[in-house]
């Protein structure tokens, strides 16, 4: 990737973050913290990595994405909108009665959503099923899923991990968005999930550790994953919860709370400023 491509990605991710703030503000609820931490991963997947067609969301040969940490959909919705799956204005009615955008992803109602998720630990199993279907049909589509680091406390994640390696699902990439925080506090204080890399290795995964906000590192990891044969890949992405909004960064309290009017204005101002800085770098 050259520097202009990276700047484009940064601008898109910045817009996705803004979208998550707009959505949760208008919803007066939702999960901004994890939406902001995973925004760069969503952006890279949809704009560089995945084979998708917004004109034909149900295209049989498309790559699939499953947001296992379904509550972080506000920024995913923003990315899908930026990619052309639906209008940006849908974000204004996120979580409203009759709205297309549900509080957690709904594959029946939202173009571009490949699996309904929200109950933690379940999406990764569905991703395994999709990857296995590709193998069965000799299709070359790939399946991507993003888990939270709190989510890996769910036993089903490890049932799925065993399944994925047993069936040699090398067309499956499992991201863990390691923002380090869950609802009740820091992950390290709530439940001991470490050493996560050794756990995934022991479960038969190729494990890659990256900075989840660095597009070069996201790219390198996904490029490596494409070369891995006979086993699934886990990408452990260190991230900052609330990334991009100063008062939300690394704050447990911003897991599932929407910004009020003043906070919304402040957040949008900060994100606009960052966008200008990125654009300035383009000149």
């Amino acid at each position, binding site marked *: 990737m050259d520097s202009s491509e990276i700047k484009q990605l940064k601008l898109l991710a910045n817009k996705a973050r803004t979208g998550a703030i707009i959505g949760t503000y208008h919803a007066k609820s939702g999960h901004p913290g994890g939406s902001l931490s995973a925004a760069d991963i969503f952006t890279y997947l949809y704009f560089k990595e995945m084979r998708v067609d917004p004109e034909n969301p149900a295209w049989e040969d498309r790559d*699939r994405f499953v947001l296992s940490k379904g509550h972080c959909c506000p920024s995913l919705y923003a990315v899908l909108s930026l990619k052309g799956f639906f209008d940006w204005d849908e974000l204004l009615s996120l979580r409203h009665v009759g709205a297309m955008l549900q509080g957690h992803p709904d594959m029946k109602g939202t173009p571009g959503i490949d699996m309904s998720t929200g109950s933690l630990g379940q999406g990764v199993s569905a991703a395994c099923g999709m990857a*296995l279907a590709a193998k069965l049909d000799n299709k070359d589509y790939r399946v991507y899923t993003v888990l939270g680091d709190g989510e890996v406390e769910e036993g*089903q994640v490890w049932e799925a991990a065993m399944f994925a390696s047993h069936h040699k699902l090398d067309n499956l990439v499992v991201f863990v968005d390691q923002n380090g925080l869950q609802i009740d506090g820091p992950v390290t204080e709530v439940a001991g999930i470490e050493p996560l890399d050794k756990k995934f290795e022991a479960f038969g995964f190729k494990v890659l550790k990256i900075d989840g906000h660095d597009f070069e590192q996201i790219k390198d990891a996904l490029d490596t994953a494409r070369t891995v044969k006979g086993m699934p890949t886990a990408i452990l992405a260190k991230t900052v919860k609330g990334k991009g909004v100063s008062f939300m960064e690394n704050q447990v309290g911003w897991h599932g709370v929407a910004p009020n009017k003043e906070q919304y204005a402040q957040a949008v101002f900060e994100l606009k400023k960052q966008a200008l800085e990125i654009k300035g770098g383009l000149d």
Partner: protein
Amino acid sequence: MAETVLKATRESFGEALCELAETNKDIVVFDADLAAATKTSIFQKKYPERFFDCGIAEGNMIGVAAGMAAAGKIPVAASFAMFATGRAFEQIRNSVAYPELNVKIAGSHAGISTGEDGATHQCIEDIAIMRAIPNMMVLNPADHWEMKAATKAAIAYDGPVYIRLGRLAIPSFNDPDTYEFELGKGITLHEGDDVAVIATGLVVNEALKAVRELETEGINARLINIHTIKPIDRDIIIKAARETGRIITVEEHNVIGGLADAVSEVVTATCPVKITRIGVQDRFGYSGPAWELLDNFGLTQPHIANVIRRVVGN
């Protein structure tokens, strides 16, 4: 009438899957280390490339099946009713029923006729659990021929289905030459206006023997077989309530949440009549041979006949 077939519905189910898979290449089957018991092993032997043992991990099995369905397959996920609907309830609710994915869930060893394994393996709540989930169809076939027809219909239907299978070999009572299965349609097996006996699953045959026995005593009981518990055949139930004025339900399930409640939901809203509930009376089972347990729990012909006599006598 064709010869009586003595067969457990789990076996009829396994055979039906195999027959259907010959022409339907989208069928894939999952099990959770119980293939020999649920009889998906019949499919496994014939179509090993389309069979996946998920190990003892029912939650993941349902999730994988959901993903497969999202990719266009017709997955059938089997385990004991206890673990399929109990352990994996929430995966079924959120990953299958909510997105309305085309997954068929087969719960084998349902009811107390599971026998010697005892209470931990005798699922008496599966119908209640599955019935409470929106979008979920619930089937409980009563003999070999009905199970084969129900399996075919479940595969042809595009959407989530729970199908209840039994462990115990039971004699068939339907005639394959004349039998017709339609999803959501109850079947009147015996005409009569003194009382309506509404039964489901393995105990339908016991109820049939009971109403035939009572014919000789001048009691004309109507017998309705409900193979589709959800969506239930409202018309046949309302008609029975209007014409007989009293209903007896018979099921190998807790009397809470199963057929009795499904029937009661219909009649209380349309034509309230007294319902007498034959079933497991809100208690756990225990170890023992299946027929002894069915007898102990009042689910065999003589017990059903006695209840009918009592209800009609009143």
